[in-house]
């Protein structure tokens, strides 16, 4: 396995950018230092990353993380537990729950709740998937690796999200996307390296999502995830003010460049060059973002694949945008669908929410595969925790001891199911995978040894995996 070479076109594009910037801005000094702990690399417009060369041969260049926010029940989606059918309505055996942390069901009588929808075998691989995911079952079952043995340390949404994204429940650590951008840089010339999109469904409690989930923590804030919005400006402040044309904006930016660079030379301030490079990038983002969200260059077949024409704020529309972002070289793309908190009416609601994401997720994987991009794109379909085998009325409570996700693409062994839970889906029985393990595996697939990507803060070196994490070899081809 040899490392992926940086493409020739990319190198050319970069050189062209530098010479253009140099011509237009009176010289681009690359020697400016970030006034932040740990970040000593030269700051140019496009960050090149600190992991050079890769620690291990990379299998993927980018990540698309489909985040089922709210706590997707594993028992009604990807972890088939026939035993729960016969136990339906029976008291949950105390041997499972004694002394365990429980969320809203504290102090209540605990009874089992059967899987609410049948499971079926899908694809050549015969993966067991709930029938509420017909598209995933029919189109991509053989492409995904289902992991049934995730477990986490947090039982409430907010800390669980923070743990899943940053490896710590304490706020202030960088999100995985920020780590990757910092570590590997960004292949996109005029887009951020970490893009977030959020869609909201109709069938559950729309749990809040804090912007800390894509915060750069103690990494410089240039590595913060940038939210692409379905309403208003696609990126905050990306549109010119009313009445200002592209030419008018260019004139303003040029005047700024001229005055700033004159001043920078006079007072010997290298920071000026770095700042001008950011202006240049901002100006190009203003041009490229509208192009990104303008889908008129997509063939009709795309719209029929995804089941949307875009612009409707749906998860499927975000999946389509994710593919377009991936094509442009964005390193880390995260799509939240924040509707999985099914404390009640889990039967109807999980079916409804699954239908909101099924087609988009399947279309994305298939689309990437058709374009040859699945080979170097890691797709994660995950959540912050699972839900209890015990009923909460006709719903399920939060559950951190076991839950399911799936992975696909770059380096992932397709068509397998990894890990096993006990007969009631309460605890992990085989091959447990921690959140740190998931992070370690993700970094590994991207060419990074998770113990070596560190930054100094608060007096010590921090990693995404803190002091934990093992690469899950069984998931990797």
């Amino acid at each position, binding site marked *: 396995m040899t490392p992926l070479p940086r493409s020739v076109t990319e190198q050319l594009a970069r050189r062209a950018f530098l010479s253009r910037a140099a011509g237009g801005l009176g010289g681009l000094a690359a020697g400016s230092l970030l006034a932040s702990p740990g970040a000593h690399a030269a700051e140019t417009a496009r960050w090149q990353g600190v992991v050079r060369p890769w620690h291990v041969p990379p299998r993927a260049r980018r990540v698309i993380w489909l985040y089922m926010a709210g706590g997707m029940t594993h028992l009604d989606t990807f972890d088939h537990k026939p035993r729960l059918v016969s136990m339906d309505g029976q008291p949950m055996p105390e041997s499972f729950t004694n002394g365990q942390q429980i969320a809203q069901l504290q102090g209540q009588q605990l009874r089992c709740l059967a899987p609410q929808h049948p499971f079926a075998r899908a694809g050549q691989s015969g993966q067991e998937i709930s029938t509420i995911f017909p598209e995933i079952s029919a189109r991509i079952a053989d492409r995904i690796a289902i992991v049934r043995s995730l477990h986490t340390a947090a039982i409430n949404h907010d800390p669980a999200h923070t743990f899943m994204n940053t490896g710590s429940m304490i706020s202030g650590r960088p999100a995985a996307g920020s780590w990757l951008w910092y570590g590997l840089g960004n292949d996109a010339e005029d887009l951020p390296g970490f893009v977030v999109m959020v869609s909201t469904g109709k069938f559950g409690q729309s749990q*809040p999502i804090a912007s800390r989930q894509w915060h750069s923590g103690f990494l410089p804030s240039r590595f*913060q995830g940038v939210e692409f919005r379905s309403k208003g400006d696609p990126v905050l402040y990306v549109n010119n003010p*009313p009445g200002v044309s592209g*030419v008018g904006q260019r004139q303003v930016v040029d005047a*700024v460049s001229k005055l700033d660079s004159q*001043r920078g030379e006079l007072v010997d301030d290298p920071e000026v060059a770095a700042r001008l490079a950011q202006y240049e990038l901002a100006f190009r*983002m203003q041009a490229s973002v509208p192009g990104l969200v303008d889908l008129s260059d997509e063939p009709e077949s795309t719209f029929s694949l995804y089941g949307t024409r875009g612009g409707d704020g749906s998860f499927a529309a975000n999946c389509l945008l994710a593919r377009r972002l991936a094509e442009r070289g964005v390193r880390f793309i995260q799509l939240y669908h924040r509707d999985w908190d099914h404390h009640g009416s889990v039967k109807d609601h999980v079916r409804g929410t699954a239908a909101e994401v099924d087609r988009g997720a399947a279309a994305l994987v298939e689309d990437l595969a058709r374009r040859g991009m699945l080979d170097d794109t890691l797709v994660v379909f995950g959540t912050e925790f699972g839900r209890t085998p015990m009923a909460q009325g006709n719903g399920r409570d939060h559950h951190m001891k076991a839950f399911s996700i799936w992975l696909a693409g770059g380096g992932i062994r397709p068509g397998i199911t990894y890990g096993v839970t006990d007969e009631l889906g309460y605890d992990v029985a085989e091959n447990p995978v921690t959140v740190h393990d998931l992070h370690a595996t993700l970094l590994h697939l991207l060419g990074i040894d998770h113990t070596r990507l560190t930054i100094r803060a*608060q007096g010590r070196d921090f990693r995404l995996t803190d002091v934990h994490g093992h690469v899950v070899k069984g998931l990797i081809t």
Partner: protein
Amino acid sequence: MPHSVRAASVYVTLGGGLLAASLSLAARAAGPSFDRDVRPILAEHCFACHGPDPAAREAGLRLDVREGATADRGGTRAVAPGNVGASELATRIRSTDPDVIMPPPDTNKRLTDAQRMTLERWIAAGAEYEGHWAYRPLRRPELPATAGQANPVDVFVDALLAERGIAPAPEADRATLIRRLSFDLTGLPPEPAEVDAFVRETAPDAYDRLLDRLLAGPHHAERLAAWWLDLVRYADSVGYHGDQEITMWPYRDWVIEAFASNMPFDRFTREQLAGDILPDATGDQRVAAAYNRLNMMSAEGGGQDKEYHAKYAADRVRATAGAWLGSTLGCAECHDHKYDPFTTRDFYAFAAFFADVAERGIYHGANSNGIWGEMMRVPTPAQFLRLRELEERLAAVAAPADAGPEAQEAAAQARAAVQAEIDAVDRSLAAMPATVSRPPRTVRVLPRGNWMDESGEVVSPAPPGFLPGIGGGQSRSSRLDLASWMTSAENPLVPRVLANRLWALAFGQGLSRRLDDHGSQGEPPSHPELLDWLACDLRDGGWDVRRVLRTVVSSRAYRRSSVPTPARREADPDNRLLARQDRHRLEAEYVRDVALAASGLLVRAVGGPSVKPFQPQGYWDYLNFPQRTYQADTGPAAYRRGLYVHWQRQYLHPAMLVFDAPSREECTARRPRSNTPLQALVLLNDPQFVEAARALAAMTIAEAGHDPLDRARFMLQRGIGRVPLAAEAAVIADLATRQRESFAGDPAAAGALVAVGASPPPPGADVVELAAWTAAARAVFNLGEAYTRN
């Protein structure tokens, strides 16, 4: 008890520290200094396995204390003072055998040759340990007899520069000086007229008088408050889950008031940590004590009280240790600290100080009823004045004692009416979380931080064991004892941390640049004697924050030009020796303030509820419990200083966030200063900055005559605070000319541009002219220099 043994051993080493602290500069330069040269190497490469944490200690060896390093280990010693050849450490760091070499290869830590040599030279010279610079007793360094009346800052700074043969930069020009001083002390740019006056001043005490004026004004207090609010993680929302809004601004106003009256820092400390339990606590002191309620809180259904009690307790330890001790005590929640002598027990004993603060784990229902445990009602400034007026009226309507029954009756009725008004105002007062003392919760050491594990030892409140104790008798120590301990004469850490951070306000970086960590992983100060001198001046001079700041900004070092020369940059790339001043981008609040002040839009009112300036629609869409829509303020509230912008922890105003304002979920001692394309997008396109540009354009057209160059000069001078060069004015004038041509062909576009913002354009304005100069002003408000403190 291992605890006290360890404490004793640290005290033993402190003796050496005292000696080292009194060494002269020249003596210090002779061999490797433990503090400056050796400890950072050991801390970085060795302490994780051979440091204070016994659970992580390998081979029973600790290198953070001399007794451990030099102990006889069955015939060998890790460190044999004066004998490199007999020192196992020296052998190991030179080994090529992967089983022998230290640090082990799997740690990914490697020593450089220079570091190996430093360690060897240190062993050869006797392997002396010093107490850590921040922990050793604080003694006022002697000033040389030749110092005379010189500012002590300059005595120390110049001595080091002379030793290194570096010539300092000349004094900055007057326009730069007044702008620098205004930013550092008030966060606001000076008005052009003030700059002009100061530039023309010839009196020798002009600088002193400027200082007096700036230090005495309310904006200085605002600037210090903004700094302090980062440390104590002040915010207007609870942070967890639904991130609901809370009323916390009275605490912020108390901080402003405290700095405005130059409240001594010991009292400042006491009232925040323990204002509620002071004898006859006043309303202000109770507001100050809301410090203890600044932690994040949750109303998330399904949260367990006990888990969140543990989270809040840990949150307070991190914040209080961060704000006052400049320490990472929070690291000891699950294990003994890897680098500093904090034990897990220290962590929980520190947490126990706050165990009496009444609180809940999960605030069920608070998302709808707004009741976050104990609450108190607090008036806004307007309500306060109204209440005072009503109370005066109430007093005034008392009838004379000898009045007849009718008069008595009338007076009683009048009083009742006023009382009813008072009651009505009382009922309308906002309620803020209050600190109320209750019998303390039991605090146990949580093994590995696990809140479900109740097997840990019960602990009583106590400061970290290696620092001077709290003294006193048998009774349980209180928050008040903690406050007194913080600013006691024996506490060496608090004054050093404070002095270092005050220094950073004036120089852009600390004497020790790690403002968030003064422990062994921090950075030894560039000028230890100076730091100690300032710390002593705080401690022994009545904790007079203003006096220390004044000393610092009066120095010649402070007044130097920030323009580096190649020679100076080469001699000292990071400017640790202070041959020049620092140059840096302003913090988020002041980016906003500059645009508002320069455009004349700024409303300089002080205090009151936080304000909500315009923010993009839908920015709060992912908040829930309850769903809410951001209601932007209009009128004066839209033009308040950045300090007053509503601090929503999960969704801080985007224009603040991109300029590195922290979420205030944790103590922030040091903000990064980043440079991103999103910052450019804010300055270019945020309607608030466009509106400021239009206001500046309107002012320019009204006041600067008709000559485009005059207008350009006027506008630039307001934006960047100096008289622009002719070539610079020409760029702006030319931009306005070209924009006028475009807008003349598209008056609708001109109309659209000048209509941006919460205020209307001036009536009767020539829209094309105004739009053209608005474009020019947009360029001014995008210049780096406008937001750079030089």
